[in-house]
């Protein structure tokens, strides 16, 4: 069986908040769910499948089904960090194809900004029972210095420069100026990025994504139900997931699991990176985007720096418009997990509902790709090819 054409994304909602001191975590999940149901033209009673990850409070689907009053016949709480929600789209499609549910709800929410949570210091990542912890925690791994080691090695092997990495942020800022909800709406220059304070060599402050509160939700359903609703039809054409790790001490920081998840997704979809008119790429850091574009096959390994330079990711300027909402680098990064918002902006592009200043004309094929965990140690990748039908 293939997932191609088995399910559609019928509803999306991105919570507008970026600082939610007045809201609870469960409330943010539920408000996002309500928004996506309204967008789809469905009600809570229609939901029979629910997907969430480690950001959901309590026992995940149990606590949230209780809070929202859901009656479920299928649930999935696979947690692979920020990539979880892209993977959930594919898992929802598989469940729908298998007849396990008809209307799948996926939610994400988090309040790291108002709770002043330091990324990478979450309880789950530092559980003493995790077999890696004793051999890593003493040395001070944060999220940023792990990605910085990837960038340092990329520069060493391929000659990638800080200025090239900066172009990723520059492109995101060009898009964010049109997003009234974005945290950072000022357009920045390459010079401003490379002159911002060094956080962990070679990554500067403006190479890093924002810390924000927020959330989002997605409704996945079977094609015949999607066609009965009033929204434009966005179909899942292919999907892939993979995990890469330290390989027993043979770690290679120059590539990510996107090399595998991307290949699987493009094969299932029967299309190539060159067919993509838009790309949502998880942008925890500028280097994350460069590595993933290479691994997905948009350019050769090692040439990502040159590929992103000179505005090539800016809508209506470059060859590959990316993250036209401003992405994690400028708009938001709810729960320190960027996967769900990547799907949302891809769906907006395919519906023709992105901001007019960044909308790709007649956008019919797009990719949403995310990574979860740390590229510097162990991470998951999830890739979804989406199509306007």
């Amino acid at each position: 069986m293939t997932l191609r054409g088995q399910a559609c994304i019928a509803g999306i909602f991105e919570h507008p908040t970026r600082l939610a001191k007045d809201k609870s975590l469960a409330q943010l999940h539920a408000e996002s769910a309500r928004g996506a149901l309204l967008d789809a033209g469905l009600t809570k009673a229609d939901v029979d499948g629910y997907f969430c990850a480690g950001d959901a409070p309590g026992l995940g689907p149990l606590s949230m089904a209780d809070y929202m009053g859901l009656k479920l016949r299928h649930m999935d709480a696979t947690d692979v960090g920020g990539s979880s929600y892209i993977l959930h789209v594919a898992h929802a499609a598989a469940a729908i194809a298998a007849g396990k549910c008809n209307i799948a709800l996926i939610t994400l929410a988090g309040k790291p900004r108002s709770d002043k949570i330091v990324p990478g210091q979450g309880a789950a990542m530092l559980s003493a029972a995790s077999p890696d912890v004793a051999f890593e925690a003493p040395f001070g791994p944060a999220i940023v210095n792990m990605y910085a080691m990837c960038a340092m090695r990329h520069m060493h092997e391929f000659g990638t420069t800080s200025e090239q990495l900066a172009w990723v942020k520059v492109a995101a800022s060009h898009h964010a100026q049109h997003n009234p909800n974005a945290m950072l709406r000022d357009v920045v220059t390459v010079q401003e990025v490379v002159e911002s304070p060094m956080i962990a060599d070679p990554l500067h402050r403006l190479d890093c994504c924002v810390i924000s509160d927020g959330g989002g939700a997605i409704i996945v359903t079977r094609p015949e139900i999607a066609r009965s609703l009033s929204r434009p039809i966005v179909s899942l054409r292919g999907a892939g997931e993979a995990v890469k790790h330290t390989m027993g001490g043979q770690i290679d920081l120059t590539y990510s699991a996107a090399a595998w998840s991307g290949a699987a997704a493009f094969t299932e979809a029967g299309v190539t990176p060159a067919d993509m008119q838009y790309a949502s790429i998880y942008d925890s850091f500028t280097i994350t985007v460069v590595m993933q574009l290479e691994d997905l096959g948009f350019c050769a390994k090692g040439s990502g720096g040159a590929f992103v330079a000179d505005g090539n990711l800016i809508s209506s300027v470059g060859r590959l418009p990316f993250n036209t909402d401003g992405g994690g680098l400028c708009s938001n990064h709810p729960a320190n997990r960027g996967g769900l918002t990547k799907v949302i902006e891809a769906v907006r592009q395919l519906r023709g509902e992105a901001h007019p200043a960044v909308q790709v004309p007649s956008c019919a094929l797009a990719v949403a790709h995310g990574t979860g965990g740390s590229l510097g140690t162990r991470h998951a990748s999830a890739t979804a090819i989406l199509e306007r039908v």
Partner: protein
Amino acid sequence: MTDRRIAPPQPNAETEHYWTEAAAGRLVVKTCHDCGQAHHYPRALCPHCFSPNVDWIACTGRGEIYSFSVMRRAGPPYAIAYVRLAEHVSLMTNIIDCDLDGIRIGQAVEVVFKASDGGPPVPMFRLSARSAPAG
């Protein structure tokens, strides 16, 4: 020179020998008698071939820097790194006792054990004499 708090490793039944050796100033890794490959962090089953026929070997304590980053965000700066050991296995560590701005990929390093906060000492690395930056 590491003013940063060194989180204490918690040895368990699988890793206790590693930390006992560390306390004696010796770096060890696991190697597999079936596939011949070393691995790190140490496991009861070889992560390469899944054989239980694994054993500890003593390391020379020498290697080279595979990648690194100097953390400058808060507190005293420190250098995190992956060091590729002479035994063809890499580990996460810190590069210490040197000018942090002089660290480069490929530099030769040697192990030195540093106290953790209430746990066994942990393996860190300093630049080998032959790779110390000129001047």
